[in-house]
Each structure stands twice: as structure tokens, then as C-alpha cells.
């Protein structure tokens, strides 16, 4: 009889402990979820502040060539010194004339140094010409565009691959350069 009562008491205590733990965790997770919601909504506010299809206009030294750089996401760092953009595409104009267009994964623009570097599967299209590289850099003061990493160039008749390229901003003269033993190569189609 004594043991039977004790068993009942133990069972009640066990059920009560489970209920208390259940209530505690449900309140705990509810609070945590609300915290996360608040954080997310704060971030969304931040993103909306920065990034609604931001466009950046960059000019060469004599302002004859303009790059219109568009991005889905832009982050401003170092008090406006650096602009970091993702999923970028750009259009290059000489006056009103569109010279070429391009796209890439990420762009970093150093506002003070006047240097823009684009990274991640950069692809530039100029008429029937396509120029690809892992990274391209444009120093605005010298109007020279440099590219490196898996450089590929295609036209209707030619295919060129190289380690690096250096070109004028108009892409009218492109120099393909080897690094170490990897020679530049032209293949005819």
C-alpha cells in the first residue's frame, strides 16, 4: 500500500516536471523566435536602406567614357570609401553610344583611389566579341583595364586564351600576356 502510494506520487511528480519543462521551452523558444524576427526585420530595413537596384556611374580621366554599374546589392564601408556590390552588370558608353556590356559576381569600388575591381566570372560583350576573366581592374586615372585568371577571348573566327590581359577602356586594343610557362594561344575556328 505504501509503495503503491509512493509510485503514484512519483508518477505525478514526473508528469509535473514534464509539464514544467514543456512550458519553459515553449516560452523560451517563443521569446527566441521573436528576437530573431526583430533582428531579421532590422536587417531588412538595413538592406532596403542600401540596396534597391543601386546604380553607380564611373567616368574615365577625360570623362569621354562612362560605366553604368548596376547591382542588386550594395554595401558601403569605411565611411563611404568602399562600395561593395554583388550580382553586377555594367554598360560602357562613349558619349551616347553603347560600346560594350558586362556582368560579374562582385565589384569593389575604392572611391578615394579611383579603382574598381570586378570579380567572379566576369564576362564582357562587345559586338560579336566576348572577353572573360576571373577578375578585372580599372584604375580610372590611366584608362587601362586589366584582367587576370582564366582569360578567354572569343570572336566568330578566333578563340584566344591567356593568363592576363591589358586593354584600353574602349577594348579596341587587347594585349594578352602569359605568366611563367603558360603561353598565350590563338585557335582558329
Amino acid at each position, binding site marked *: 500500500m505504501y509503495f503503491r502510494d509512493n509510485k503514484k506520487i512519483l508518477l505525478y511528480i514526473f508528469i509535473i516536471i514534464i509539464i514544467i519543462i514543456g512550458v519553459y521551452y515553449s516560452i523560451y523558444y517563443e521569446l527566441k523566435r521573436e528576437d530573431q524576427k526583430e533582428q531579421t526585420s532590422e536587417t531588412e530595413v538595413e538592406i532596403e536602406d542600401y540596396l534597391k537596384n543601386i546604380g553607380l556611374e564611373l567616368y574615365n580621366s577625360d570623362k569621354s567614357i562612362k560605366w553604368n554599374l548596376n547591382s542588386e546589392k550594395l554595401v558601403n564601408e569605411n565611411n563611404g570609401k568602399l562600395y561593395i556590390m554583388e550580382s553586377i552588370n555594367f554598360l560602357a558608353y562613349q558619349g551616347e553610344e553603347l560600346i560594350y556590356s558586362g556582368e560579374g559576381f562582385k565589384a569593389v569600388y575604392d572611391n578615394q583611389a579611383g579603382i574598381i575591381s570586378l570579380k567572379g566570372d566576369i564576362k564582357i560583350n562587345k559586338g560579336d566579341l566576348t572577353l572573360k576573366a576571373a577578375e578585372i581592374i580599372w584604375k580610372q586615372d590611366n584608362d587601362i583595364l586589366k584582367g587576370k585568371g582564366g582569360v578567354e577571348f572569343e570572336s566568330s*573566327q578566333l578563340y584566344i586564351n591567356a593568363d592576363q590581359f591589358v586593354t584600353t577602356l574602349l577594348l579596341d586594343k*587587347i594585349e594578352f*600576356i602569359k605568366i611563367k610557362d603558360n603561353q*598565350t594561344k*590563338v*585557335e582558329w575556328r
Partner: protein
Amino acid sequence: MNIKFFCKTALIFLFIFIFLFSLNLSISAQKNLTADKLIFEQDESGASIVEATENVKMIYNEIKITGHYALFEQEIQIITFENNVKVIMGKRELSSNKLIFDMENENLEMSGDVKLIDEDIKVNSGSLSYDKTDQILNFLDDSHIEYDTIKASANQIKIWEKEDRALLIGNVEGTQGKNRFTADQIEILNRENKIEMVGSAKLIFDSEE
């Protein structure tokens, strides 16, 4: 039994297909040029111009050309090589200071200290024009040939590759062994070194014979 036979036949066809496919790939990939540096430009009509410098090497079907400089002009389908140009066509080796290669018909125009070195023939000349279709080597400007025991110079030397035949034209002077000869024109045929001379040929035999 039939299934086994079918499998064997299928395997044989598969291997043949793979072999032909890889052979086709290797043949089709034989049109390229490598260099330390390439410069791409377009002319006013939009045609491509590619300048190649340092350690230039081109493989174009069965021809291999090397040099220090090359210029490809898409508009006229011409590649010009300069400085220490060497051409390898099978066992034959040609060298010169300048070479113009026609990409459409694979003809060659070489100039400046042109040299031909083949298994049994050597030619020096000021210029060479090579017609691939007819397989004729046409050496101009004070040409000199060495063929077996024959050494001769002429204004022009034409070699027909298919026929193993050479024609020396204009102010021909030469030796065969110890004998000297002069002629307006002589023909060398690769049949026991038979020499056929036409025009005002003159043979000068060695006095000891």
C-alpha cells in the same frame, strides 16, 4: 552464342568509333598559334588583326612555323612571320627572314636568306614561292642547289615535289663530281641522277679523266 557474337561485334564497333572520333579531334585541333604575347585589334571594317611576339609557334594542319614575330590579318587571311622564321613540313625544313602564309590555300612566300634542307637536297636562295596545290617550290634570286653529287647555281630553281624533278633556269653553272657545266637551263630528274640540259649547255670535263 548469338548474344556473345553480338556483344563482340558491338565492342569492336565501339572501339573503332572511339578511335575515329579521337583521330578526328586531333586532326581538327591542328590550327593554332602560341606566343609569349598577343595583341588583338580590329581594323576599320571590323576584321581582326592579331600580333604575336616572342616564341611564336604556329601549327596549321601539317605545317609547323616558328619565328619571333607574326601578324595575322583576318581580312586577307594572311599570316606574316618575321625574324628567324623556320618551317617544318614533314621531313623538309625551310628557313628565312620573312614568310607570308596564305591560310586559305596554305601557299608560302619566303624572302631573305631562304634555305631548304631536305633528306637529299639543299637549296639557298633570296626568295621562295611555294604552291601547295601543285606542290611546286619556286626559288628566285641567285639560287644554289646541292643534290647528291650535283652542285649548281641559277637565277631560278623550280622543284616539283610530286615528280622529284628540279629545273634550273638562267645562267646555270655547276659541278657534278669533278666535271663542270654551264647552261641556260638544266633539268635534274631523280632517276639515277640523270641530268638533261637544254639551251646552250657546255660541259667541261676534268682533264685527269
